[in-house]
C-alpha cells in the first residue's frame, strides 16, 4: 500500500503515544511497609521505579533483621545486633562492623549525648515492652554505669566486644542508615527522583520528578495536624526528634523516649523538637537524638564547629531557631518568627 495516509496515520499514532506517555511520569511507584517498628513509605519515580521500590523493600527488610535489637526466636542468624547483645564477644558482618565504628565515632563526637549502649536504660523504662515504669534513683545510678559507649570495641576482624550486661541499640541511627542505603541503591539503579519516609525520617533522593525541590513539613509538637515550618530542598535527609513522639505519664509527670545517656532519664534540655537536615541520613538520624539531649546552647556550639549539617530547633517556650544554611529554604508557620544562628 503506497498510501501516504498510512504514514500520516502511523506518525500521528506515535505522537499520541508519546504525548500519552508524558502524563504518566508524575505517578511514582510507592510501597508502604511496616519495618523497624514503624510505617514506611518508599516512592520512586521514572523508568524502573517498580523494580527500584521492590529492591528497596527487600533491602529494608534485610537491614531490619540485621540491626534490630529486638526479635523473637532463638535463631539469630543474620541478626547481628541481637548476637552482639547475647554475649560479650561476637563476630558480625563487615557492614555491621563499619556501621558500628561510625556510630561509636559519632557518640564520641557528640560527647556521649548519643550513646548506642542505651539499651539497658530503655529497657528499664519499659520502652521496649510497652510496660512503662519509672526506675528508682538507685536503679538509675546502676544503669549509668552500664551506659557507656566506650565499653564497646570493634576489632579490625569485625569482632565486637563489650562489657558484661552492656547492650546495644542502634535505633537512633538505624532508619537513617537504611535511608542512605536505599538512596544509594536507587542512584545505582538510575532513579533520579524519589522520596522516602521511614516513620518520619524523610529522605529526598534527587529533586522532584519535575525538577523542582521537595517540600518537607516539620510537625508541630503540640498540633498533630499542624507544621512548624516547611523546608524545601533536594538530595537531603530530614530527621525530627521530639518528646511528643513517644512518651507516657506517671503521677502527672511526662516521661519520653529520648534518654540522656548521662542520667539515664528522659532528657530535659528545653527543646520540644529537633530537626536535622543533612546529606547523610545516618548523620541526620544520630544527631537528631544527640542534639535533643544537648539543648540549645551546646547544640549551637556543636554546629558551629562542624557545619556539615543544618538544624531547626523548637524550644519548649515556642521559639524557633534555624542555622544559617537553611535561611531562604524554610517557610515558617503563621506567627512564628525564626531566629537564625550564625556560624
Amino acid at each position, binding site marked *: 500500500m503506497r498510501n501516504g495516509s498510512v504514514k500520516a*496515520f502511523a506518525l500521528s499514532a506515535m505522537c499520541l503515544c508519546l504525548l*500519552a506517555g508524558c502524563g504518566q511520569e508524575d505517578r511514582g511507584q510507592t510501597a508502604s511497609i511496616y519495618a523497624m517498628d514503624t510505617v514506611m513509605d518508599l516512592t520512586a519515580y521514572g523508568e524502573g521505579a517498580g523494580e527500584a521500590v521492590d529492591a528497596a523493600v527487600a533491602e529494608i527488610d534485610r537491614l531490619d533483621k540485621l540491626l534490630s535489637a529486638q526479635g523473637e526466636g532463638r535463631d539469630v542468624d543474620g541478626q547481628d545486633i541481637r548476637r552482639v547483645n547475647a554475649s560479650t564477644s561476637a563476630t558480625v558482618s563487615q557492614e555491621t562492623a563499619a556501621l558500628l565504628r561510625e556510630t561509636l565515632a559519632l557518640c564520641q563526637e557528640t560527647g556521649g549525648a548519643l550513646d548506642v549502649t542505651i539499651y539497658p536504660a530503655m529497657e528499664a523504662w519499659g520502652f521496649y515492652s510497652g510496660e512503662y515504669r519509672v526506675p528508682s534513683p538507685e536503679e538509675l545510678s546502676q544503669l549509668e554505669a552500664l551506659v557507656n559507649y566506650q565499653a564497646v570495641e570493634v576489632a579490625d576482624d569485625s569482632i565486637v566486644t563489650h562489657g558484661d550486661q552492656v547492650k546495644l541499640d542502634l535505633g537512633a541511627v538505624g532508619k537513617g542508615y537504611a535511608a542512605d542505603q536505599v538512596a544509594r541503591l536507587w542512584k545505582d539503579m538510575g532513579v533520579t527522583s524519589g522520596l522516602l519516609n521511614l516513620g518520619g525520617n524523610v529522605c529526598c533522593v534527587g529533586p522532584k520528578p519535575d525538577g523542582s525541590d521537595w517540600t518537607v513539613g516539620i510537625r508541630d509538637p503540640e498540633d498533630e495536624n499542624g507544621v512548624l515550618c516547611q523546608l524545601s530542598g533536594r538530595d537531603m535527609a530530614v530527621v525530627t526528634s521530639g518528646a511528643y513522639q513517644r512518651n507516657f505519664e506517671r503521677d502527672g509527670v511526662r516521661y519520653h523516649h529520648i534518654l540522656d545517656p548521662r542520667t539515664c532519664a528522659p532528657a530535659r534540655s528545653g527543646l520540644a523538637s529537633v530537626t536535622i537536615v543533612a546529606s547523610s541520613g545516618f548523620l541526620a538520624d544520630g544527631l537528631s537524638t544527640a542534639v535533643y539531649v544537648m539543648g540549645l546552647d551546646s547544640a549551637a556550639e556543636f554546629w558551629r564547629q562542624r557545619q556539615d549539617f543544618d538544624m531547626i530547633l523548637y524550644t519548649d517556650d515556642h521559639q524557633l531557631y534555624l542555622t544559617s544554611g537553611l535561611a531562604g529554604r524554610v517557610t515558617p508557620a503563621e506567627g512564628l518568627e525564626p531566629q537564625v544562628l550564625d556560624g
Partner: protein
Amino acid sequence: MDRMPTRADKPARRVALFGVLLALTVALAWAERLIPMDAVLPGAKLGLANLVVLCGLYLFPMPWALALTGLKILLTGLLFGSYYSLAFSAAGGALSFLAMVLCKRLGRTVAFTSVLGGVFHNLGQLLCAWALLGSMGILAYFPALLLAGMGAGAAVGAVGALILRRLWPDADKTS
C-alpha cells in the same frame, strides 16, 4: 485457486463463516487478556476481538452482524468476565456498533469506522460507569480512555482494512 466468496451470500457459507468468526472472536478475546493493558490504564484494552466485529459488519447483512456482535459480548462476558464487565461490555459494544453502522452507511473508510468504533466503545463504558457511580470522579478517565480507544481502533482498523481488501476484495465497503 478459487476466490474467496464475497459477502458470504450463500446461506451455508454464511452460517459456516459466522461460526468461524464467532469462534475466532472468542479466541481473540482470550488472547488479549494475556496483555493486561488495564494495569496501565483501567478499562483499556487492545480490542483484538473487535477485528471480527468490524469484518462482520462488511461481510454479513445487518441482522447477522448484529447477532455476531451480540453473541460475542455474551460469550466473552460469560467466559472471561464478571457481571460488571458484562454490563460495561454491553454498553460499550452497543454504542460502538451503532457508531460503526452509521459510519458504514455514510460511506466512511473501514479504518475510520473502526476508530470511531473504538472511541464509542470506551465512551459507552465510561457512561455506564458514570451511571453506576454517579460521581464526577469518572470524568478524570475520559480523555485518556477515549484516546486509547482511538489508538486501538486505528490499529484494528488498519488490520481489518487489509484483511477485507485481500480476502474479500469485492465486499461492498461503502454501504
